[in-house]
């Protein structure tokens, strides 16, 4: 998709919100584009088959509309794409907070908050694990990444370790950081990874030589609030073919409510020098929780803050402000770009997700919150 000048930019259109009965941590499209998977706050991986509806089928589903009448297009449009649920992938504990698809093989990797890392086939009705390691980390695996060549996985966790694995599950290298590690990513090529810890200390590390290459100061993403070490760091990713490193999260104003503005910092990978720092909004807006690089040269950045606060932003790394911001979705926790570059999906939250005490429901039940998956289409320029 060509880069779009702001003046002629047509905003993305939400095709449909697919409801779920549980909260999700992350959603990802498969490289083939035919599957969407999501890690849930219930120890499962949820799966959907991405089904393109033939146009005729859309018309069939609107039988009351006169076929010749142009006004039919103004009626609520059926999504041209459907997500057809498949059986969950089970065997995980706590939350499945991280997923990564192999770039070529039909394999998905998942990591849970109890320390388990597993590889599973993602097609079929009842896939079984290809391999699994129940003690890949001691507890919460906070981030999982896969190298562009599909050879290695990187994980990091509450146990302060960054670990590199082959995609066959063999431990290759590990590095113990100074504190809990919240994010890790691979450089586009070679054996360089970047990771960021609790206090906003970001480092590049060569897992071939097992040496730290460079330090990056993202301490803006940390504060000590009373007794609480407040970690704002959530995302580390390379852009510009590895020349730049982006670190995202929240500039915390305090613990408890955890107010703070979403922040994204761009560093020069070679020198460690800070190049740009974006702050997206007010204290209620919270965290940059995820981002996706569009082949058109811009980033899709998502945020989640106080309940109800969420943004989807399109940002060119060379510009000061996002050229598009959408606030119609509450608490956006992840974004995934379809491989065709024409659609993206976000996992978010139902409205009115907070409240003290027991909500008064008519039947006296206590419903949990849920994470709809919102599917968007990016119009052609």
């Amino acid at each position, binding site marked *: 998709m060509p880069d779009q000048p702001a003046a002629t930019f047509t905003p993305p259109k939400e095709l449909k919100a697919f409801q779920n009965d*549980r*909260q999700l941590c992350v959603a990802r499209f498969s490289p083939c584009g035919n599957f969407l998977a999501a890690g849930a*706050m*219930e*120890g499962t991986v949820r799966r959907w088959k991405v089904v393109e509806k033939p146009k005729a089928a859309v018309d069939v589903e609107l039988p009351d509309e006169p076929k010749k009448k142009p006004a039919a297009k103004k009626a609520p449009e059926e999504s041209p794409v459907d997500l057809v649920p498949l059986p969950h992938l089970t065997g995980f*504990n*706590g*939350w499945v*907070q991280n997923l990564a698809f192999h770039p070529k093989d039909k394999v998905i990797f998942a990591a849970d*908050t*109890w320390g388990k890392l597993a590889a599973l086939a993602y097609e079929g009705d009842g896939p079984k694990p290809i391999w699994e390691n129940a003690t890949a980390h001691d*507890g*919460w695996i906070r981030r999982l990444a896969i190298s562009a060549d599909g050879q290695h996985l990187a994980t990091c966790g*509450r146990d302060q370790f960054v670990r590199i694995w082959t995609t066959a599950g063999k431990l290759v290298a590990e590095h113990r950081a100074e504190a*809990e590690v919240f994010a890790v990513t691979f450089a586009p090529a070679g054996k360089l990874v970047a990771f960021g810890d609790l206090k906003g200390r970001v480092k590049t590390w060569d897992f071939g030589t097992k040496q730290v290459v460079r330090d990056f100061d993202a301490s803006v993403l940390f504060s000590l*609030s*009373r*007794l*609480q*070490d*407040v*970690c704002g760091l959530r995302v580390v990713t390379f852009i510009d073919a590895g020349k730049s490193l982006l670190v995202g999260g929240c500039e915390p104003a*305090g*613990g*408890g*409510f*955890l*107010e703070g503005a979403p922040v994204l910092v761009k560093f020069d990978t070679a020198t460690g020098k800070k190049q740009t720092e974006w702050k997206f909004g007010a204290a209620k807006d*919270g965290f940059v929780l995820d981002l996706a690089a569009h082949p058109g040269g811009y980033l899709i950045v998502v945020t*989640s*803050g*106080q*309940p*109800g*606060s*969420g943004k989807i932003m399109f940002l060119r790394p060379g510009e000061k402000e996002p050229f598009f911001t959408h606030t119609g979705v*509450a*608490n956006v926790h992840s974004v995934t770009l379809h491989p065709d570059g024409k659609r993206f999906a976000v996992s978010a*939250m*139902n409205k009115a*997700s*907070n*409240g*003290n*005490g*027991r*909500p008064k429901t008519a039947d006296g039940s*206590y*419903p*949990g*919150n849920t994470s709809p998956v919102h599917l968007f289409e990016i119009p052609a320029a």
Partner: protein
Amino acid sequence: MNPLCKPWEHATSRRQFLGASAGALAFGALGGMISPQAAEAMRKKEKQVLFVWLDGGMSQLESWDPKPNTEFGGPFRTIKTSVPGTHFSELMPQCAKQAHRLCVVRNIATKDNAHSSGVARIQRGDPKNRGVAYPFFGSSIAKLMGPTASKLPPYVWVKPGSGGFKTEDAGFLGPKYGSLAFGDGKPPEDLLRHASLTAEEDEERNELRDLLNKRYTAQRRPTYTEASSFVFDTARELMKRQNIFDTSKLPAKELDRYGRTEIGQHMLVARNMLEAGVRFVKVGSYGWDSHGDNFNASASLVPKFDRAFAAIVEDLAVTGLLENTLVIAMSEFGRTPRINGHVGRDHWPEAWSIAMAGCGLKAGAVVGATNDKGTDVKDKGHDIGAVFHTWFKALGIDSKKVEYDNNGQPLPLAHDEMEAIKEALA
């Protein structure tokens, strides 16, 4: 915003400290009495209290009552404790080792889900409304049991931020029974004799103070000045024992055991105070109101509490003090099972936990339970009134018989329609 969130406060000077005391006392009134014989009998037992207040609301699901792998259970694992069959959150490995000394009540069900009213309501025991402000538990014990033979202040509060004399805790008992608060765990600045003064010069200053006090007394009701003198004299007793506040000379291993954190250092000061003979020591910790990012907040906060609390329970047990010390750790409520969009938990008085240990309590007990998802107490829960009866009973005070005398108005010590939690009592 959290209505109780306060700006960072500063160390308290001697002038502020005494000024706050005198000002508050001038508007107060002394309240009830119990019989001198009963009070004396209580003092002989020299029972003490450690009250750890986690302001804002600790999550029961990330501490005492985990529900792993359930809809609202969160990301954490559980761990075994020293009591077979009892599990705590993985964030509490040290408390897990002390479980055989603890008494955890998992079916607390209270009524107030707001900080602004709940903090006081819980600490006053939420009795029936009789048109008076009931005392906080610390003030109640200061009144009912008084100072120990050490003559140290009966109710001391080690807290972050500012110090001073907190008379509002005392309710109808009157300001004398307020808490003597040590901000940031430090003594008031320059209450002790300055190095440039000789002992004789300091004595002359104190004589001058006494003279001024007498003039002040002559113009006011004796109860006010009696309270003022009581506060100053007990505070001076404490000031003579500077080692209580000085944790810097302790072995590194001991500092590490409590944790080199605010709550760790404050708990060490509390231990020193209990060992020195302070009747009631409250340790306050702020910042537990985790509406946002609850799980990372808990991952940071809970282990710091865990380390400090387990260390003091162990030390009190080793020194034998636990036998006569009632230990309590609690908040104004728990946190919602439901996880909000900011990955936080909100206020939840419906089903939460209190941890206790020490005198009069069953050790290694887990009392009550919540349902599988942690959304309700099983069977009948216990309100704070029942908890107050339990504490009084554990301290040897019969809260069904002993009453306050509020200038002729008899008032029960705790909610008169509630009973002590028998399963928690030894």
